[in-house]
């Protein structure tokens, strides 16, 4: 915005640019951990219905403890909206599934397994859902009494995602940076904060230069699998940094100094927990098996024969309980490390330049419905 001034150049010395502002994350880690633990328990007793409330609480926590230029953001979405969005999505998806089934039969009659490509349609739908879910989240993001919002079309985005996806597939992944740049450009150019419009200035080539050797080395990780988390952490860190560097909203721009090894610790902690929990689960199943075999007095092969449903009911109950406990614990671990800690880690490296451009922005934009979130939930896709 500075170079748009009316004053003729040179008549007045330009003021030195203000130092960049930081983004502060002040969330308390143990508070977050307690929240997700309680949420996971409630999710269990409500058969997962509590997820709408938990997801909302997590976002509220992360948003309100994120302060840009000393002003904390706010998440105004509510769980009830997500629930309604999910129900509407269900009402739309069910007939689609039925149609998919019927069309699938016709395809199969013509040629065995001809209906498999129909799955592509669901992928397209998933991309649409990702776009619309992002729109929902953005319109619930408020900073300084003004909300973010989005226009653009979910289907146009989905079409781009599909076309680029095909290219990535044909180039064995090499086109991925350009795909991400193109999709991010579409998303950011349709992102607004009040009357400011966003943009994305990252380009595929920059990302490619930062990560091409990971692409080359990825077959190595398949062989020497302990390397895979390092590679993935490298990739994610480079991707995040590239993404943040490219974000513009009006005259405001972001930059990040995220080190390439920023996520090593996080991923290894998750893997460590995962291993530990799996070992506990294994020991528990082993113990329960021994107990059941001892109590029933039958040889083990007979108790766990392929069709011996009725006699292994106690075993089944024990396994279900163990499985739920495992899933619950893993859920907590993932949310604490991969959501909260990752969030904090990324934010502490972010710098905001020329925040003054957002000092007097007029609010605009309408609230978007949570339908997209519902689709994303129903189709099991995630993205930002």
């Amino acid at each position, binding site marked *: 915005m500075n170079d748009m001034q009316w004053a003729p150049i040179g008549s007045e010395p330009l003021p030195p640019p203000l130092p960049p502002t930081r983004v502060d994350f*002040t969330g308390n880690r143990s508070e977050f951990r307690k929240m997700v633990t309680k949420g996971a328990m*409630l999710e269990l*007793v*409500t*058969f*997962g*219905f*509590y*997820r709408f*409330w938990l997801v909302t609480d997590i976002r*509220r926590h992360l*948003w*309100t*403890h994120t*302060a840009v230029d000393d*002003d*904390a953001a*706010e*998440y*105004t979405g509510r*769980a009830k909206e997500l629930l309604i969005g*999910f129900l509407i999505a*269900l009402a739309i*998806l*069910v007939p689609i*599934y039925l149609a998919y*089934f019927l069309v*699938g*039969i*016709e395809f*199969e*009659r*013509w040629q*065995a*397994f001809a209906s498999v490509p129909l799955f592509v349609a*669901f992928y397209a739908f998933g991309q649409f859902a990702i776009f619309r879910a992002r729109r929902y989240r953005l319109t619930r993001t*408020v900073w*300084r*009494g*003004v*909300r973010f919002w989005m226009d653009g079309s979910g289907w146009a985005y989905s079409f781009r995602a599909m076309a680029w996806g095909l290219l990535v597939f044909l180039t064995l992944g090499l086109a991925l940076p350009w795909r991400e740049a193109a999709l991010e450009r579409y998303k950011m150019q349709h992102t607004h904060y*009040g009357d400011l419009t966003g943009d994305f200035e990252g380009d595929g080539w920059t990302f490619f230069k930062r990560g091409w050797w990971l692409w080359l080395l990825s077959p190595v990780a398949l062989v020497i699998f302990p390397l895979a988390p390092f590679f993935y952490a490298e990739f994610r860190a480079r991707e995040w940094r590239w993404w943040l560097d490219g974000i513009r909203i009006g005259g405001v721009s972001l930059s990040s100094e995220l080190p390439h090894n920023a996520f090593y610790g996080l991923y290894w902690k998750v893997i460590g927990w995962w291993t530990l929990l799996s070992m506990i689960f294994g020991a528990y199943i082993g113990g329960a098996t021994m107990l059941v075999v001892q109590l029933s007095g039958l040889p083990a092969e007979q108790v766990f*024969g*392929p*069709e011996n*449903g009725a006699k292994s009911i106690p075993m*089944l109950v024990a396994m*279900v309980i163990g*499985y739920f406990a495992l*899933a619950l614990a893993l859920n907590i671990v993932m949310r604490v490390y991969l959501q909260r800690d990752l969030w904090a880690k990324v934010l502490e490296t972010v710098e905001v330049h020329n925040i003054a451009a*957002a*000092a*007097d*922005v*007029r*609010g605009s934009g309408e609230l978007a419905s949570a339908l997209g979130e519902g689709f994303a*939930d*129903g*189709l*099991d896709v995630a993205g930002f």
Partner: protein
Amino acid sequence: MSDVSIEAPAQSKKPTIFFDGVSSRKRQVTLTLGDALEIVEEGAEPVRWAYADIRRADSPAGVLRLASTSAPPLARLEIRDAALAADVTARCMRLDEHQTSRRGIAKIVGWSVAAAVSIVCVVLFGVPLAADRLAPLVPKPVERRIGDAAEVQMKTIFGRSVCEDPAGKAAFTKLVNRLRDAAGLDDTMTAGVLPTSVPNAFALPGGKVFVLKGLLDKAQSPDELAGILAHELGHLKHYDNMRGLIYNGGTSFLIGLLFGDVTGSSAVIFASRSLVEASYSREAETAADTFAIDIMHALGRSPKPAAELMFRITGKEGGSGLTNILASHPLTEDRLARMTKEDRPVSGPPLLTDKEWQALKGICGSGKI
């Protein structure tokens, strides 16, 4: 202190910030706590918020952030001074009315459990009933279309085309027709042998029965094969395919609904589905066995050889790796025990002559598989 008295503005060093919800401009304001909260910015009209309209908005620690139901929805007042915040809080009686309370959570839990219980009840009682009632009502052409699709798939997996040796085919048709007449099925049903070494047999929607060559190779007498065929005819007679389709579709949908994933891909859904469906399938298998026993008795033959054939197969295969006939079926030894109990001396004529049986064994030609 009375409510009407206007206090000296208890302002502090820490600034109070007001965002009017129209622009992102940060306004330094002072507050006057009168009969309503008055937000005063220098050189602007004061804004009045009635205490009853004030609600708490999410904020980081150390900041009291307020909204008002009668102001623009995003207007926010941020009080950073603890004493002033306490003052304002004391006057706003309905500050936290909109938050999810303990009671709210109890309500969510209660209704979720109620929803879960009703879904489980529908899965256990409603869906089987619906499947039983609806399956016979599915129009024949629809069933046949589904069957055609399945047949194309099966042939892709199990090979090429149906075995066509004329003498073998004649023997097979004779055997199938005798069973079909005894079963009271109409002549729209078809049967064939597929050239693959997997020992199995299955029925498809729309009255299609397929025997795989591997089963034929392991069979030592017509009665052994006839019992298995009668079992598959039992599936046709009971509309088991359509019942299973409706039942599995219904349960996966409902269980998916319960866990919030309509595609049904996650492990929980998979586990609970397999559990429920296996028990349903075992019931159907037992019913088909009963039917097979009745048919064999009606023909004056014993059902026992068929069970012996099954036992021979599971014995050799170690009880695993077989798909249709054995998985999610009752235990083979239980079935053998049951059919042994139903063993009666042979009273009817043999189903096939020795010559026909030999022809049937060679229906796919020799050693081509």
